[in-house]
């Protein structure tokens, strides 16, 4: 069977997915930096802190421990651009994040992004699923995250096949374990 190698899950991301830390993002001025400065995004219209909060929120909505923050940030970065043209979007993001942070401050004595445990952050999100911001991030992410061709190999999805002659000679029927179940 032609099996594809997906990216191995690193120890760091494994730990992150369990309990250790949500503080992978560093905010400096208008820029947020990923772990080890592996990526960065500079924000003009929304604050870098709000941007980092949105990236965390995106990960908590669709948590894939084998995906780096940059794939979530790729969707969120679009909001900064859009907020430059759309004042109501900019206002909505600011207002809704304030609500989420004040709820998390009340319950967990910390801003949403700074809460260590995923289960507690998700608890805050669950109480805010009616928020227009939540609906927007979820809706944009379910298209934007999974339609990013860079993530496809990490899920074992090969994408376009016609230019390669389809799968006729590339494993459309090569499953080899059915007689063992």
């Amino acid at each position, binding site marked *: 069977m032609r099996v594809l190698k997906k990216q191995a899950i690193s120890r760091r991301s494994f730990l992150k997915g369990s309990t250790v830390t949500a503080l992978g993002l560093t905010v400096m001025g208008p820029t947020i930096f990923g772990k080890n400065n592996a990526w960065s995004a500079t924000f003009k219209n929304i604050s870098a802190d709000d941007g980092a909060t949105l990236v965390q929120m995106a990960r908590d909505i669709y948590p894939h421990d084998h995906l780096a923050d940059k794939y979530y940030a790729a969707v969120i970065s679009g909001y900064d651009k859009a907020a430059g043209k759309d004042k109501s979007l900019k206002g909505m993001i600011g207002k809704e994040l304030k609500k989420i942070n004040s709820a998390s401050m009340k319950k967990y004595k910390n801003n949403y992004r700074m809460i260590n445990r995923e289960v507690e952050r998700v608890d805050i999100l669950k109480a805010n699923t009616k928020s227009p911001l939540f609906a927007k991030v979820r809706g944009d992410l379910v298209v934007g995250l999974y339609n990013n061709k860079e993530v496809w190999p990490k899920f*074992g999805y090969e994408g376009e096949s*016609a230019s390669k002659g*389809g799968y006729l000679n590339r494993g459309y029927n090569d499953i080899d374990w059915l007689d063992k179940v």
Partner: protein
Amino acid sequence: MAKFSKSDNSVAVIIGSGAGGGVLGMELALKGIKTVILEAGGRHNPQDFVNDEWASFGQISWLDKRTTSGDWRVARDFSGLPSWIVKAVGGSTLHWAGASLRFQPHEWKVKTEYGNIKGASLEDWPIDHKEMDKWYTKAENHMGTLGTGGRERLPGNNNYKVFEAGAKRMGYKDFHTGNMSINSKPYDGRIACQQIGFCFQGCKSGAKWSSGYVSIPKGEATGKLEVRTHAQVLKIEHGKDGKVNGVVYADKKGTIHKQRARIVCVAGNSIESPRLLLNSESNMFKNGLANSSGQVGRNYMRHMTASTYAIFERPVYFYRGTTMAGIVTDESRNDPSRGFVGGYELETLALGLPFMAAFLDPGQWGREFTASMDQYDHMAGLWIVGEDMPQASNRVTLHKKFKDKFGMPTPNVHFSDHENDIKMRNHAWKQSTALYESVGATKVIQTPPYPSTHNLGTNRMSAKARDGVVNKHGQSWDVKNLFISDGSQFTTGAAENPTLTIVALAMRQAEYIAKQMSSKAI
């Protein structure tokens, strides 16, 4: 290629170029009848299609504004997208998977077979399986349907092999890679299937039959068929004699044109066809054209559908190869001891990663969802398609406020499940879950219906004028030179994918139209 004058009142005008309109256009042209097809979308050749789900969705889908109501989950999850159909030459035969099944004999007569079902507006079709047999054969030969006419079926892909192993463990008897209208060997000048996948995105190899690049070119080659693209019909007009005499349409720029016609055949799929009739109201036809029975837009059916996706310890790569080549037909019988009337088919199905995210469990988020997505390459999947009950209250109506860019009221699609639909769906989920668990599935996800691909019944065929919109030839009860030529003429939906039946009915209708025209009855 033919080009007819807009003032030529001797032409047959067909609205829509899919399974019904495209095939009818070919057949009429082959019989020497001057025919104009008005298609709202553009024309794509197989090489133009893209192996990319969202890009393709933007390229070929019908995305005009629509609204939804009723208790179906589609109205909540995809409120502006009640159906997933195509706006292009070839219509939804670009997007269809290729499954080409005949109705079972009893499915032509379900009111007789099932009796009175509370809340359902069942009627028997005014035609039966004996009469349809030769038309089915003609349709299968035109489309190159496998498993018929001595044509060998496709080899099974990985998704099929998992499905087949489960079917055997379940004790099912009738399963195979399907009666697909996809070439397993070169046929009719088209090559054999390359196992590309992406059947829903338009078949790039042309191995799958589509009216767009198979039937219509055969019609055009006669010099009797003209296809006008980007021609959105807004209204059908009639004379003082109550017969239709032309249509009004908008071109790409929004310029309004009139095309005169001897007859008009409506084949815009089951949302647009009733919308057009309702919008063609006049002093003579106050409730809309062909609607003296009040049945236009009613009895909207979409098949009882759902999906089941299963995760296994080892990889499957279910997206490799033909999207829907696999079927179990054992559950399609009518066996009321299961707690519902009618039956359903189980058909293999794979989605790419982007669409799996959108459809696996719409609106869902968090680790339960992403844990499933993480196992995408270990998934197998199937689609459930069964007979749903026609209900008078499930209907297409014109929106009171919203209008499209040409000023035509947009359609609203109202649908609620019948109790029988719900019982059948639950049974199908239970059986398909057991099927996958029998071959070691570690997790099974029961996925709700997608936006409708099988839109049926909104201009239905009936034995008596008061019960439907058209007679047994798809001819309007009220206006004798007006025909319905798509799935909206279905009296009931049966358990089978509808395309083969739409094609067979179009071929049968072409013969009737030709005779009626030559005898000057129309």
